[in-house]
């Protein structure tokens, strides 16, 4: 049945665009904008109205992307994640995406809850959370570059086999 992989691929792309789009928004736009906004005292609006909503769609888009990707792999799931030779490229893409998902839920989101005041924290804890969230977000931006290469190039075996 072709409907399941076609639907899974479509959802994987839609959610993946949202996830990475928001990751790029955080890194290319919000981090720089917040610095400028903090300097002129206008950061509260971004932190109150923009960041929580962006983070909501960001973290759930990450989950949907991963689940749709897993459904798309189907019977190839184990071969991809065990990095078997026949699935090496997509396996690397899948592992990079998985590391990024774990980073979102285990580090970025818990630290953002501290930064945005959703959980009680001292100024020192907020400051440390800000630093960790920033670095992990940067790590995910860095990983997204090879991740997209291996996801997109997975089917082009000539790239790897040299013919």
């Amino acid at each position, binding site marked *: 049945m072709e409907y399941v992989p076609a639907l899974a691929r479509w959802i994987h792309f839609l959610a993946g665009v949202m996830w990475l789009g928001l990751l790029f928004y955080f890194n290319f736009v919000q981090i720089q904008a917040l610095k400028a906004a903090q300097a002129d005292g206008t950061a509260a609006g971004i932190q109150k109205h923009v960041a929580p909503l962006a983070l909501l769609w960001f973290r759930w888009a990450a989950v949907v992307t991963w689940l749709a990707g897993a459904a798309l792999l189907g019977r190839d799931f184990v071969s991809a994640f065990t990095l078997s030779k026949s699935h090496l490229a997509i396996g690397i893409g899948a592992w990079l995406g998985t590391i990024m998902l774990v980073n979102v839920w285990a580090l970025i989101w818990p630290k953002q809850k501290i930064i945005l005041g959703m959980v009680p924290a001292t100024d020192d804890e907020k400051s440390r959370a800000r630093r960790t969230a920033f670095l992990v977000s940067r790590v995910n931006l860095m990983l997204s*570059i*090879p991740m997209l290469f291996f996801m997109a190039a997975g089917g082009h075996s000539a790239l790897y*086999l040299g013919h």
Partner: protein
Amino acid sequence: MNPLETLWGTIISGLLLTLVLYGAVRFALGG
């Protein structure tokens, strides 16, 4: 300096990581 401090440092790190992983895949597949 940590390259992840800047946007361009992060992007260049990502490109270099892509090259390294690409080389590793080619090597593993004997390409």
